[in-house]
């Protein structure tokens, strides 16, 4: 049996003259934390948008849980949860109502709905703020609630787009613990991040994407060993060629 839960083949996205994602190929295994790394504008978010049905590929495709993203995206959406880069729940609804709405939208049964929402609020330590409007929550709480919303229907895969951006140290750490817990529960996690130490800590494998093309896919340990660097950040700089750019800038000073 194929253990790949996501299979991407020749996935391409073009916006006019700009090739945002250029014929990329990769697989994600069941239960894996797969990191998608790259500088700004590398095509990380565009790839997530195509895999989650928010954007149509110009060419190529992918299958998620055996469903084709070009023709069976509605079926795919039942089994995935998505946490976008910016928390986009409803400002005028309370934490409880936001989760309840998501449960209703995803068809969580009437019996389970309220119980599931309560449980979720407790898991994410938001129970005391359950009646607070979304707009009144702190950034960390908003992020946690957005993740809770993405998990309310028990998805098999979760897509996390820059989950810790803008969070303080404590909130980011608590979020990383949460991702680790999800991984232990066997969930497949597709993660994009700018923070390479975060990727080093969390990811089983990472893909490095530059200008829409995948340069390398490997484990963080192997990347460090192959580039003879101590940290994933240094390995990333070397692989992407950013190391020489930084050196040139420093010399210019």
């Amino acid at each position, binding site marked *: 049996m194929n253990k790949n839960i996501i299979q991407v083949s020749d996935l391409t996205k073009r916006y006019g003259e700009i090739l945002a994602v250029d014929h990329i190929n990769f697989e994600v295994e069941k239960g894996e934390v797969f990191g998608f790394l790259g500088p700004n504008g590398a095509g990380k978010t565009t790839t997530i948008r195509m895999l*989650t*049905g*928010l*954007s*149509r590929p110009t060419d190529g495709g992918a299958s998620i849980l055996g469903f084709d993203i070009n023709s069976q995206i*509605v*079926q795919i*959406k*039942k089994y995935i949860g*998505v946490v*976008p880069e*910016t928390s*986009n*729940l*409803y400002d*005028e*609804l309370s934490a409880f*109502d936001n989760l309840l*709405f998501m449960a*209703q*939208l*995803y*068809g969580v049964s009437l019996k389970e709905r309220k119980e599931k929402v309560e449980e979720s609020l407790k898991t994410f330590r938001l129970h005391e703020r359950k009646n607070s409007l979304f707009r009144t929550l702190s950034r960390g709480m908003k992020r946690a609630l957005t993740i809770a*919303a993405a998990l309310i229907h028990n998805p098999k895969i979760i897509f996390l787009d820059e989950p810790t951006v803008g969070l303080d140290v404590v909130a980011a750490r608590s979020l990383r613990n949460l991702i680790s817990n999800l991984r232990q529960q066997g969930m497949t996690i597709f993660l994009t991040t700018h923070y390479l130490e975060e990727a080093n800590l969390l990811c089983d494998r990472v893909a490095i994407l530059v200008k829409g093309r995948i340069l390398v896919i490997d484990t963080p340990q192997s990347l460090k060993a192959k580039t003879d660097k101590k940290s994933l950040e240094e390995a990333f700089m070397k692989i992407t060629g950013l190391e020489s750019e930084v050196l040139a800038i420093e010399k210019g000073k």
Partner: protein
Amino acid sequence: MKKENKMWRDNLRGIFYIALKDIKTYYFKPPAVSWGIVFPITWILAFYLRSPGSFEELVPGLIAMTILFSTTAAEAVVINFELRIGSLERLLLAPISIAAVLLGKVLGGVIFGFLMTTIVTIVSVVMLGLHPNVCYLILIIFTSLFAFSSLGAFLCVMVKEVFEAQTLLNLPRFLMVFLSGVIYPVSKMPLILQCFSYVLPLTYTVEGLRISFSDISGRIIFPYTLMLMGFFLLFILPAIRLLSKKFE
């Protein structure tokens, strides 16, 4: 077959909960209530005070205006604001079609419009002692609610920003108030304006409502409801296409 049924059920559930969420989040707020009910009443009163006569004759126009303004009162916010802040994307991530998302938005306007129109109609009927044909009234109100809510959705998906949508919405709204027989009967307009008024959906609402409130028996309402259903399709189908294009 079973799979298709399940998909239909998912879509219907999505439409219902999106509408409910929009009503809870946006509709019962002062701006929507003001546009939906206060504005039409003020207008009609202003016209009545300028040339007092039989207020009963203005009732179909008042109801028509309430339908028009209440269904479209918050659609710019419901669609364009959510598009801008990314909340609409959250709906599109759910396992329902784009058409279901947009129909949910339209249904929100319909429900709010129905509540506002019911208040205005009941108050008018009771205060003026009118005896409308209730079946006709319900038919014409419902088809109008769907036609105007889909008109609002269509205009909103054509533009990006909330203020652009509001400006764009005002053009047909005011054009229809003047040319659809709300205040001035279509039959007394110059011929060219009469022809133009029959391109506007509000004309069919006003005419349909006049029939519902008139004593003349034998006049049928179905041509008007059919026209309004046609307008609903005319607006909703391109609106779905436009929204889908935004996410290509």
